[in-house]
Structure formats: C-alpha cells, structure tokens
C-alpha cells in the first residue's frame, strides 16, 4: 500500500507500515502465546487417532466394553444399531487388557460409508471435499453413539436463540460465521428460518460445484435473477461482489455500506450527482483537477443528500431492469 508518483495515482499512506507491523505482531504474539499456554500446562495427551486394525487382537463383545465404558460420549446406552462396539472399533482384547488407547482402532470415514450406502449421491464428492481435506471424520459431526442430534452448547443460545441444531454444530468450528450471524444484517439463521445446510452441503467439493454461486442464491431469490434486458455485470458474475450472506454491518447484507461500495467501482459525472446541472453543491464548479491539488469546496446539503439517498433508492433495479439502462426502475 502507499503508492505515488505516476500522474493519476493516489497516495494512500494512511494504512501505515507501523500499523501493519502492530497487527502482524498481535497475530504472531497471540499465536505464540497460545502455543506457550499449550505446552506449559499439564495435559493428558490422548495420542493420535488410530484408524488401522490392531494386529493379534481378538473380539471380546460389547458387554466387556461396557464394564469400563459406562458412558460413551455422554450416552449411557448407545443406539441399538450401533451397539456392537467392535463392528466399528475392531477387536478389543488387547485394549481391554492394557487400557492402551493405541490398541483400539477408531472408525474412519470408509467404515461409516461401508454401511451407510443410502443417499450415496450426497457423498460422491466427499473424498475431495473441503471437510475431508481438512481431516474431518464423519464422527466429528455425526455422533454414532446416539440416535439423537447433538445439543447446542448453552452459551450460543443467547446470541443465536433459535438456531437449528445442525447449524449449531457447524458454528462450533466456524466461529467467524457464528459471529457474523449476530451482525445487524444477517440471513435469519439465528432465528431458525434458515440453516447452514439451506445453502451449504457439508459433503461437497465446493471448488467444483455446478454452476456458479449465484445459482445457489437463485434457489430463494428468483426475483433478482432475471433474465434482464439491462444487466449489472458484477451481479451476473457473483452476488458476493456486494453481499456477504452471513452477516453485514448494514442493510441488505451489503459487505460495505452504500454508497461506498458503489463508488469504489463507479465514477460520478458532475452534471448528475455533483456540481452543475440539477442537484449539486452550490458554489462548486466542475471538477478540473485531482485531490489534493484541487480540493473541493465546502460540502453542500445537496451532495450529502445524494449520498444519504442510497444509490439503490434511485437505481433501485440494481440487479437488472427491463426498462432503464441506468437501472433506475
């Protein structure tokens, strides 16, 4: 940041190097602090998750497992369809004899998919999906020891009081999304009207999803999809050029408020939004030089009024129009 020199370039040096350094220091410092905290306290390492079979182990039967494992993940009695522990965990004789967690196997994703063949089409992309590449197991989201869905931790209930249980599970990891759902403008996930899975498929490879992201938005917002006579090209390409679907500081899920988001692409002609012609700044002449060489004069209420009138109040057909090339209606 901070280029200057060539005619027409802008000097943008407010986001200074020192500020950047502070942010970087904060990030690195936080990371180091977290690491130090981790290694400086007394913990009980549980070891890596073993998914390979244990050689020479023999089956012992679920009642033997239950002798020690009175509760499994809070479940006193696992659902009957998952009650045979060794079907998934493999023979447990060596683990039962020693208590060594390295001598029992934990089911991998293939173990689950070996039986759960129904709905196989939903899992076709799982092998290269974001969640699979992030190292997630089925059991990170699905609780095989219970027939019930997992419960929402109590602290979320105040900020996301009506969120559905599936979404509650998602935001356990996707904390940045959880916090966006509390923004002044958001999709009504916290209110229970939508869930994460209304738009996302946890098993898909998002990189190669069919169509584009707009087709996903179109499943609920058909009235913005046209086809139009007069289009707004960035709208055609990606709704998220302007919108953040999880949450935003201003109305209509706009990533940045109006008119800033519009002006960051568009230029304004003097004769329409500024000085001459119709509404404009009294006393200010047509622009003839760059800021700061030729700064503008005092702000008039006309210009301020134009900026308060969100661009879409006049250009209300911002998603497309059958009537007006300027997308006014």
């Amino acid at each position: 940041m901070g280029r200057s020199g060539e005619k027409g370039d802008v000097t943008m040096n407010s986001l200074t190097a020192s500020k950047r350094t502070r942010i970087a220091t904060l990030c690195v410092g936080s990371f180091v602090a977290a690491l130090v905290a981790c290694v400086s306290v007394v913990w009980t390492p549980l070891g890596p998750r073993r998914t390979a079979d244990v050689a020479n182990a023999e089956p012992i039967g679920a009642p033997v497992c239950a002798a020690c494992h009175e509760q499994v993940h809070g479940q006193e009695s696992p659902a009957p369809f998952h009650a045979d522990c060794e079907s998934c965990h493999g023979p447990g004789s060596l683990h039962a004899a020693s208590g060594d967690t390295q001598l029992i196997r934990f089911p991998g994703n293939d173990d689950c998919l070996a039986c759960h063949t129904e709905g196989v089409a939903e899992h076709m992309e799982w092998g290269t999906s974001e969640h699979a590449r992030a190292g997630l197991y089925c059991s990170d989201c699905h609780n095989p020891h219970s027939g019930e869905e997992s419960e929402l931790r109590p602290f979320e209930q105040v900020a996301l009081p009506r969120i559905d249980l599936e979404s509650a599970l998602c935001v356990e990891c996707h904390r940045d999304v959880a916090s966006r759902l509390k923004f002044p403008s958001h999709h009504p996930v916290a209110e229970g009207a939508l869930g994460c899975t209304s738009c996302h498929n946890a098993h898909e490879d998002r990189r190669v999803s069919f169509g584009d992201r707009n087709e996903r938005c179109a499943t609920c917002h058909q009235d913005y999809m046209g086809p139009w006579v007069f289009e707004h090209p960035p709208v055609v390409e990606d709704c998220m050029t302007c919108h953040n679907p999880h949450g935003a500081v201003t109305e209509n899920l706009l990533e940045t408020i109006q008119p800033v988001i519009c002006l960051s692409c568009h230029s304004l002609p003097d004769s329409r939004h500024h000085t001459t012609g119709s509404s404009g700044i009294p006393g200010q002449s047509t622009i003839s030089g760059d800021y700061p060489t030729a700064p503008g004069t005092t702000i008039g209420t006309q210009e301020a009024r134009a900026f308060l009138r969100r661009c879409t109040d006049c250009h209300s057909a911002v998603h497309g129009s059958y009537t007006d090339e300027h997308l006014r209606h």
Partner: protein
Amino acid sequence: MNTYVTRAAILAGYVLIATPLLADDLTPRGDVTVGIQLYRPEGPFERDDTASFFDKYRYLKNKGTDLPFFVDLTHLDLGLVRDDGTYAVRLQRWSPGWSNDRAELEGGWPGVSLLADYRRYRSDELRLFSSPTGVGSAFASVFNDDTSADDRFFVRRTSAGLAVRVRPAGFDHPSDLLKELEFSSRYEHRSGQRQDRYVLSGSQERGAGGLNTSRFRAFTRDIDQDVTSIGTRIVSTPWDLLTSAIELEFESFRERAPTTTLGAGEPGSISAFDPVGILAGFQDPLKSLRAFNYVPDTDRLYASLRVRPHLGPVQFHGGASVTRLKQAGSRAPEQIAFGLDDNSVTTYSIYGAGEFPLTDQLALNGYAKFWKRRNALDSGNILFSKDQTDAFLEQLREVKNGLELRATPMAGTDLTLGYRGRFVRRDLEFQKSTRSVAPEFTIIGEDTTIHTGYLGWNLRLVRSLQLSGEAGYENGTEIGYPRELERAYYAKARVSYVLPRPVPMTLTASGRFLDGESDEIELLGESAGARRKQFEVRRWNYDVTLTAVPKESLVVFGSFTQHRNEERFAHLRSNIRRFEGPVPASILNFFIDSVPQYESDVLSVTLGGSYQISKTLEASLATTVTRTRVDIAGGGGAARALDEVNQIRNQITSIECGLSYRATRQVRLDLGYRFDRFHDDVRLEALDFSTREHTLSVSVTMDLDALTP
C-alpha cells in the same frame, strides 16, 4: 395459508402414516413443549404499522396491544421407534415465534424413505423514508410514498416440500442400474408488500411545473409470487465400477402481482396515484409503458450428470450440468411494444476433481472446472439498442483449476502446498447505441487472471490440540472489476485445545487476515490523461472462545470476536457522463475527487453460565453485546460528506436468564426472561432506530419416552 389449517394438516399427515404402524411392534418416543411468550416492546416502534429493528427477523403480531403474546406448541417431536432404535416415522415441529415455524415428517421403510417439510417465515424491512419530500430534515425526508404512509414492508414465505426415495434392493430386487430413485417437489408462496422507489428523470416525466424536489418517489407494491419445482434423481452403480447420479429439475417462478407502469392515468399506473400532479400533461405513449421494477416470470430447467469411478485408493469424480433460465408467462409492456422475444440465459459446467496417493505419506489433489454463461438476449432489438449505454456481457467463460501436494509425515498431521488459478473471459459488446460508453471509458475488463499459491496445515498431533490454517498470496495479472484484487496476502488459522485438568476446559481461537490492492482498471480521459480506479482492502477477524467446567454442576463460558474491514479507493469524477464522450464538442475527463477510507469494526462479547442447583433445578444466565462502528475518513469533499451522513454507531445487547425445573420424570417446566436492546447512536435523529424489548416465557415439556412402560 391459514396456520391452524396447516397445523391440523401436519398432524393429520402424521396420524395417517403412524396409525397403521402402531400394530407393528413400534414404541412411541418424543416430547411435546407448550410455550407462551409475553412481550413488552418499548420506544417509538411499539405500533403495528412500524417495524422495529427486532421485527426485521422476529415478527411480533399485535405488538400495539397492551401485552402482546405468543402461544403455541413451540416444539413437537412424535416418533415411532423400532426395536433397533431407528425411527419408522417421526414428526418434528419447531415454532419459535409468530410467522416462524417449520415441520418435518420423516418415514423410513425397507426400500422407501419419505421426507416432507413445511416452513413459514416473515421478515420485515426497516422503513427509512416516509416524510413528504421537502419536509423535515434535509437528510431524511427524501422519498414520498405515493400510495400509503402507513404500510409495512415485508415478505412472508410459506413453503412445503416432499421427497420420496425408492431403493429396489429394499424390495429384494437389487439392481446396479437403479440403486436409488428419488422424486422431489416443492411449492413456495411469497406474499407481502415492498416499497418500490424510483426517480423521475427528464422534464417530460416530471411534467409541467414539476420540481426537482418531487422527483424522488415511491409506492407500495404487492408481492405475490409462486415457486413450484419438481425433480428426480437416478443413482446407478453399474457393475460396481462407478457410481453415477443423473438429476433433472424444473422450476417455475411466477410473480402474480400486477405490473405498475408509468402510465397515463389508467389503473395500475404511477400517474393514477400521482398525488401532486407532477405527471399532469404527461403525453409520451411509449414512456407510459415503462414498468417499474418489473420482475420476469421464469422457467428454469436443470440437468446434471455426476460420476465417481470406483478406483480404490484414488478418489475421483466428475460431471457436467446445464441450466437454462427462460422468461415465461408475462412480458413487460415495453417488451411487447418493441417485439422483444422471451429472454433466456444458459449456463454450462464441466468439472473433474481427484486425489491420487503417490506414497503412504504423499498425495496429489487436483481439480478443474469450466463454466460458461450465455445471454441469448436479442441485443439488436430496439428496446435494448436504443438505450444501452455500457458494455453488454454476451458471454462469460471461466476456468478454475488447482493442484495440491499434501504430505502426511505422521498420523493426524498434514502439510499442503497448493496452487489455484482463476481465468475469466468476458465477451463484451460495445457501441450498440449512440449513447454507448466507449471501451476506454468502461470499468469492466475483458479478462481476469488470478494465480494463488498457498501453504496449508492440519495438525492433530495429540487429540487435545488441533491446529489448522492456510496462508497464501494471490497474484492477479488481469482483473475485470476495480474490486478484484491484483495482489493480496491472506492467512487463516484455527487452534483448539482441550485441557482435562485441573479445570476441564476447551479453548478455541481462530483468525483470518486479508490484505490486497488493485489499480489496473484505468479510465482514459481525453485531455487530462488516465486515472486509475485504485482499490485497497484489509480485512481481518479473530475470535476466542473458552468453555470451562469448574465444578460438575457449573459450566461457564465466554467468547470474544472482532471483525474489521478497511477499504480505500480513488473516488473518480468526470466532467460529463461517460457515454457522452468522445465527441468533438464534448471532451470527457476524469479526476480524483477524493480518497475515501472506509472502516467498519464489529466487536462481540458473550458471557454466561449454567448451574445445576439441585437434581431437579437448573439455572442459567448469559449476555451478549455486539457493537458496530462504521466511519469514512479521508480527504476531499466526498469523503467528508459520506462520513457526515453514513456513520454507523449501534449496539445490540441481549440478556437471558432461565430456570428449568423437572417436576416429575415426565414433566419439565421452564421459566425465562430475555431483554433485547438495540441502541442506535446515529447523528441524524430521523434515522434513530433505538428500541428495547422484554420477553417473559413459560413452557411445559412433556417427555413421551417416560410415559412408555
């Protein structure tokens, strides 16, 4: 749709399916919660004709009465369970508030499964502009509403869907060619009202004697939309060599609300409810056909094929799809007058993705996707060509690809070195009309080429500690829009740590960072030279969440998040409009008006805990505060004006406490109080949406499991 009829229909559906099953050895399971909520809204928004901040997402019926209330079966779970613990049939319904409920009915039998659902939700819009033009604050009194000053703007969505999946194997007729067959259908109705805002332009539309201050207008328009879809999916596994899925879907969208035109006084036209006579004397017959915010009816047809060969340790899947969105049903009045055929847009996708193990510790992951969008608009039609100003995007082609090399040096740990590419080609057409923007004055580029290199990591060294993240650099050699980034650094990381003793606790933290810029888009003035649309952005956020269990009966928690977005850009002005140059009489030049710097900062804190007072009594208390600030700084007139009227300062506070008492094995009583406050600290009083709301809730939950012997 009458809600009581809907509830009865849902229950009747359940009884219809469940009753014959009672003869089979099935066990009832579930619970029923009856709840009542009493509300006390405060402030200027306690009237029924005005939406408050909280009404946007939580509609409150009859809030203008002394004690608005809501009573319903807030949760219903009725199921019949087999001996193996699986459900034969299950009905669930959630009803957290007025105009917000959903229900699901699931059934599963050998070879057949069924899922039916019903949803209803209403969302409201905040009303900003209601004063007549020219009255009140110079900033807020911008728009008239020519039809009614007391309308609320909202949309209510009611939908129902049904999916039936058939598996021949369940009928003892296994078939590789027909593993699964699924039919689905869905219907959604949207009703409500919206405020359509528009500006009259030109002396003709203003009419004789019309004032500039009367140009900014609005009217209330009905929303009456139907969306109907049907689809099918066929899954095959021929000879167990591959799994394939063919999907077909058809969707019909219809807007039933009448189209409003500028008109010449006839019903359904703007001029018919022209309150101040600004359209008096309006004569242009063609312009009278102009439809305001016309929404086209459409049919959408979607077809896709996906294939996953069974290749052992190699993961691969690929597919192709086509979607055609075509105008159907109604046409815009101007469209009929100019003889423009139905519009259509077609998109095509082809992709392949795979993961190939190289050794026990190395794997290669790659993908490629081609996407194309073609707009079949008859751009030669005079409706388009007489007015078109900017470039027409006839065709868009995009290729995305990527390659990752992943190393897994030990179990639970992997490191990834990767590349992503994005290539976009836009076929732009210029000069369709005499008012067209010349290519040198457009802000759209024909090509986008962005290369990204990154390093990722997932570390599960021990099960107590998980570290994951990714850091990379984007290099955009060509960009299509000023907000696309030519150069950007990004990083994201997450850590989760479980401490089993001395105090069991879970600590999670995550963060994201992006710093990017671009200046390739250039507007070439005729005598003053080029000005670049420079854009810079820095976004970062982080969160820290701690949950601890100091005693078996006590759980405490806290979380803190911050999101920050900083943008800087060159705000350009031109002396004349872009499509007015270049002509000999008009020299078009661009200048930098100012360099606005936009900053948004959102902080959110949540604290609370729950305490098990006795075996039957539990108390909970929690609070959350979200604070939002938006500022626009920077030199120049525009930046100062933007900051003057677009600052955001608000705070959302919620406090909730509750007592839960298990009266018997079957019955639980819950008592709760919730306080919500939205504090709006804007400079302009007319835009102040501050409001407060108290909610007292009582509910009784009956556990059906406990009733069974």
